[in-house]
């Protein structure tokens, strides 16, 4: 899968590849662009296993280095997108 440059695209691509992806990724992507502060990580379906798989997918497929422990300390989707945008790259 080609790597994306936009943090929202990167997150949606990663969520699409986990075992239990959140439903309706297209509409989730729209919300993440328009008002990401409205969504919590629970809304993204990111329980502990989801965080694990999402972080691995971000690293393998998008080259974004972010750990499950880092994500666990965040609350909102807007924080996660900022982390993805500033995270080191492989």
């Amino acid at each position, binding site marked *: 899968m080609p790597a994306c440059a936009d943090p929202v695209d990167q997150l949606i691509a990663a969520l699409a*590849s986990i*075992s239990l992806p959140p439903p309706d990724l297209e509409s989730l992507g729209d919300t993440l662009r328009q008002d990401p502060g409205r969504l919590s990580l629970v809304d993204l379906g990111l329980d502990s296993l989801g965080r*694990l798989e999402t972080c*691995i*997918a971000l690293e*393998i497929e998008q080259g974004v280095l972010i*750990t499950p422990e880092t994500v666990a300390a965040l609350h909102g989707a807007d924080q996660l997108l900022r982390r993805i945008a500033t995270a080191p790259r*492989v």
Partner: protein
Amino acid sequence: MSPLVQRELLPIPLPLPPGPLPAAGWMLRELYRLRVAEDPRREALRFSDHTISHAELLEHLDHWQERVQDALSRIGCLGSDRLWGVCGGDTVENLLLTISQFFAGRPLLLLPLHAGEEEWASLVHRAGVGAVFTDRPLPAALGMERRTVVEGDWQIWTPPEPLLCAPPPPSPGDGAQQVREILDQVAGIALSSGTTTGVPAIQTSSYFEALAMLQQPEWPSSRRMLFTFRMQFGASRNWALRTLLEGATLCCVRVSERLELPELAGRFEADTLPVNPTYLEEMLAQRLDERFPASLVFVTGTDRVPAGLRRRFHGRFGPRLTIALANSRLGPLTLLPPDQLLAHDGETVGFPLPNVRFGFDPETPPEWQAQGIGEAVVAKTLRVRLQHPDHGLIDLEHTLEAMRPGDLLRLWPDGLLSFAGRANDVFLFRSVLVSPHEIEDLLSEDSAVQEVVGFGAPSSVYGAVPMAALRLRSGLDPEQELPRLRRLCQDAMGYRAPKALIPMEAIPRGPSGKPLRRELGRLHALS
């Protein structure tokens, strides 16, 4: 891990190059001479159009030994205090010269026929080979320039400086103890197929261990063994030479004749054929059951024959596959009779041989113990019989304690053992145990997958991340198939599913056909 458990297989540190050998006569050749006397006219060797009885083979071995000794005396080498290489084509002369030198007790490293000059040079330098028997010009990189004719095309190549060898030690005067001391000091040498390391390794052992690997009295005999001429690997060489030492018949196939095995098995009237799982797959794909003689039994010493493959083999061929857990250092450890091929989980490797005791590492991780799995710790009693010209038969015995072949095994109540993975291959993904075989079993059943290898990609964050390298069947579009296969894995394995499916033109494998999991892991390592 218990500090008492011995990781090294060698009971004593061994020098390389080896120390002086005793006079050649009283090694295996004299034992073989006894065996020949029992039935000299029995067929010993088939090789292409050559048919040789045991009596004729013994004459050939004596002849080659005399020619070698004559050549050595011409270059002033009376003893054998160095490691020898053999580099020849798949010819009967190569086979006879090699057998003669093994039976004479010379430590030999067989340079692989299929290898290139660079690999030969690397092996020669790494092993410390001091001289080479060869039927062909050697590359300069080997550092051998002086040549001495043995016979025909066969020459001894040595370094430019004079070859100085120590004279042979005096023949042992007081029997077994002295023999044993000598055998402990001398190195045997072989290539391993690379199960543990992923690449063939040079293995040294005491000569006692090397001789024990050639005898294996606890393993059932075969009457006529069909064998492909790839003797550079220690395990293969042991099978072949053991067949001759037992007075049975070795039907030796040239490397180039491999694809005609069914016809050769019929022509040679072979009753046993060593195989590996790759060839078993080939047999099924090409419906070779219709061409192999119905009386032929197959035997494999490969660490794992997957349950799916066993079912398909059994369905087509019936109970004709014998399985052993074996490795090139310890030889066979178990025996699974053909009628037990599908027992329990379909992954059994049989019962321990009478001279083998299995235990489990008490510090096996709890996750493994919960599944009834432990890392095997093995004790094996090695038995060696020699015929000494002065002292007659000498029987020696030694038990190797606390050996670790690196296998994870499951013990069933009836005493059968199942192979659960290589200790080095199974990996922890976070706190969860994942076996590459789970991934392979799942994906290999899909019709789109030609070949698949599971592995753990090392990661400082996750331990190892499950992944799979795969080769799709020709004509299929990876962009369509990979997402489907990935979802298939996720449905079956949940979050333990491989996180990357990596399409490849060819799966990297070592010379013996085993997948190079570590190399794949290294290539796809995460942060």
